[in-house]
């Protein structure tokens, strides 16, 4: 029997609507959904009125760049997880292209504890596939798997594991601990100096092209490798119709490949590049309308398994310049749910159950993370987001909660609004505002202590 917990960690959410349409109350206590039903009450609990709001399991991002250690001018674990919470995320997988690179147990453990201390979301580090992302030798994948960070996803994202032999070895090696290699598919020799999608528009604008075949050929090679060695494979940020075709073929053959798509690749096309506005510069680049359509259909039919943001913050001066000199990347945590809402739900391609699947349950499963992605039921971990589906808002810098303001959606009207986010039973966002750092850090410490006590 546990000690009675203090009042501020018992929350009663009333009148929320679940993805299947049922109205329900949720009682969050000791980091779990203690009860689910109607007419619930709890003495001394903080009451959150969720009338008219949709309750989804906390979102899980399989692809985020938190930039710490090394690039703290762009983002830190603290600011990045604040951005995550603002977007309804309760867990983020942090990519390894930090400085130093996350290719040892030491760095991944450091990232994980920074996340625990900040308390806004679970930070699950991703380990590099190769030492220093140099593409030459395998990193200590086993050590990272056995570390406190329990790394299961490995990626050189930012760079492609282009050497076929190295990719084969990596795929084989991680089978020992149920790991998965997440490939950034970009044949480097076909994309030297590439600035935008290769096609009619790149020819006109005088920008070096990034041909679709550079992505598709790597995916084709890797699915066949995965088949040959009997290993799981995950493809990051799929961006072309051709890639979708290859993945569909691979799945039909029974190859254990999973794939992700970013929100921006579900909504934006290369036409935006004609302005030479570097907010639209991203890798892989924005593509044609036909690609956007194919990606939407693939997400709807399950060929693409998850949406992952590829949140990539940059300092202002890295985007406030001529195109060639600008950095690649867009922030995406705060806008992800709204963009999926606009591109997939409003168009009838996904319902809210599907959204929970592609933004919570499936990423958690692929990443082998526990305590996340579970359905909203009694006994499940208290990871919940409350979302107002009826709101529309002009998306401005006020909606951004991290350090980066390089969002392509500034000035656009987006549907929906995250009203509240709960992580380990305590609120990280309430009334649409991210809660203060000290308050959340204190709640995180209490939650950690009570989890210790329960053990």
């Amino acid at each position, binding site marked *: 029997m546990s000690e009675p917990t203090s009042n501020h960690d018992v929350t009663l959410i009333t009148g929320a609507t679940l993805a299947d349409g049922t109205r329900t109350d949720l009682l969050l206590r000791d980091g779990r959904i203690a009860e689910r039903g109607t007419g619930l009450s709890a003495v001394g609990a903080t009451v959150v009125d969720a009338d008219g709001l949709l309750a989804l399991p906390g979102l899980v991002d399989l692809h985020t760049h938190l930039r710490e250690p090394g690039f703290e001018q762009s983002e830190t674990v603290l600011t990045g997880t604040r951005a995550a919470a603002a977007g309804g995320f309760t867990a983020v997988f942090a990519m390894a292209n930090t400085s130093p690179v996350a290719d040892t147990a030491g760095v991944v453990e450091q990232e994980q504890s920074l996340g625990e201390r900040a308390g806004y979301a679970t930070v699950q580090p991703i380990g590099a596939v190769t030492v220093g992302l140099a593409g030459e030798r395998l990193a200590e994948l086993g050590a990272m798997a056995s570390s406190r960070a329990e790394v299961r996803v490995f990626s050189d994202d930012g760079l492609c594991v282009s050497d076929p032999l190295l990719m084969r070895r990596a795929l084989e090696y991680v089978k020992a601990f149920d790991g998965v290699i997440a490939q950034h598919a970009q044949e480097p020799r076909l994309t030297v100096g590439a*600035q935008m999608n*290769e*096609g*009619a528009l*790149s*020819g*006109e*604008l*005088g*920008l070096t*092209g990034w*041909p679709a075949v550079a992505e598709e050929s790597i995916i084709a090679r890797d699915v066949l490798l995965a088949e040959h060695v009997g290993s799981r494979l995950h493809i990051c940020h799929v961006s072309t119709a051709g890639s979708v075709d290859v993945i569909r073929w691979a799945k039909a053959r029974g190859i254990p490949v999973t794939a992700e798509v970013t929100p921006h690749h579900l909504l934006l096309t290369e036409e935006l590049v004609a*302005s*030479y*506005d*570097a907010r639209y510069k991203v890798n892989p680049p924005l593509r044609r309308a036909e690609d956007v359509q194919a990606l939407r259909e693939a997400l709807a039919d399950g060929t693409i398994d998850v949406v992952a943001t590829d949140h990539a913050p940059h300092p202002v*001066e890295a985007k*406030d*310049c*001529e*195109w*060639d*000199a600008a950095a690649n990347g867009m922030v995406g945590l705060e806008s992800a749910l709204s963009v999926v809402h606009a591109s997939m739900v409003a168009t009838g391609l996904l319902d809210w159950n599907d959204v929970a699947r592609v933004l919570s349950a499936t990423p958690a499963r692929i990443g082998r993370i526990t305590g996340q992605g579970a359905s909203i039921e009694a006994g499940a971990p208290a990871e919940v987001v409350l979302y107002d589906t009826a709101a529309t808002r002009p998306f401005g810098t006020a909606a951004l909660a991290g350090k980066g303001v390089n969002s392509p959606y500034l000035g656009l009207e987006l549907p929906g609004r995250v009203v509240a986010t709960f992580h380990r039973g305590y609120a990280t966002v309430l009334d649409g505002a991210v809660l203060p750092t000290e308050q959340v850090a204190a709640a995180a410490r209490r939650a950690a202590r009570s989890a210790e006590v329960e053990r």
Partner: protein
Amino acid sequence: MRHLLSTKTLTRDEAIEILDVAEDMAETQFREVRKLPTLRGKTVVNLFFEDSTRTRISFEAAAKRLSADVITFSAKGSSVSKGESLKDTAQTLAAMHADAVVIRHSASGAPQTLADSGWIDAGILNAGDGTHEHPTQALLDAFTMRKRLHGERSRGRALDGVAVTIVGDILHSRVARSNVWLLDTLGAEVTLVAPPTLLPVDLGPWPATVRYDLDDAIAQRPDVLMMLRIQSERMHAAFFPNSREYSRRWGLDDERLARLDPASIVMHPGPMNRGLEISSGAADSPRSTVLEQVANGVSVRMAALYLLLSGDREESTRV
């Protein structure tokens, strides 16, 4: 005209206007006093991030003949080579009250970024951005063609029905792009000739015919044959095996010159690789317009500066 960034956005009337004003400017070059007071007191900054003596001198001459003050800023040894951003450079020029900025930059789109940024209020004139556009080059090329075709009666005329064939590295050429859009606007028929590796992958939207064979193209009897400079470094990126093969298949040698229609003209934006894309015989023949292009460049740039700076800038819309 608020800015001159590209030929793609010029209407037919706007293009003819620039060429006609260039006629007036050209005439002043034959007077005793080759100077006009029109832009007195205006400051024109030549912002050249890429080395280019010829274009830079041409713009300098153009601005000075209109009595403007010229400040030249070239990248080597400047604050830019020490890492100063385009934004900071622009704001420095704005603080010095530049009225016009003539910019040459290696990044496609840099002039547009400068014009849209709000860092500086000056008129922006694109003197070549990456592989994107070089509008005054295309304008001086069109002026040259018009003058050779119509002589004293060029004013008000376009290039309707003129067959222009452009040969060379189309993929990397801002001169080719600006010419294609402008020539189409002026009613000319454009053919592009290059090895397939030096053509953009999708030429669907381009108002031009594409050929791989130069001899075929010459047999079509073009009125104008424009040769573009080839950079031999491209053979190291496997665009073509070596200079010899390129020259044999796509070079204008004396034998091909002889097969050209006697009335056709040969053009080259310079600088030329004699013996590579163009033979000395071709370059020096009376059909070659290379030197006129240089002279016409000053007149056309005078016209561009005049149209950019002389009128009420608040009222003009961007070109």
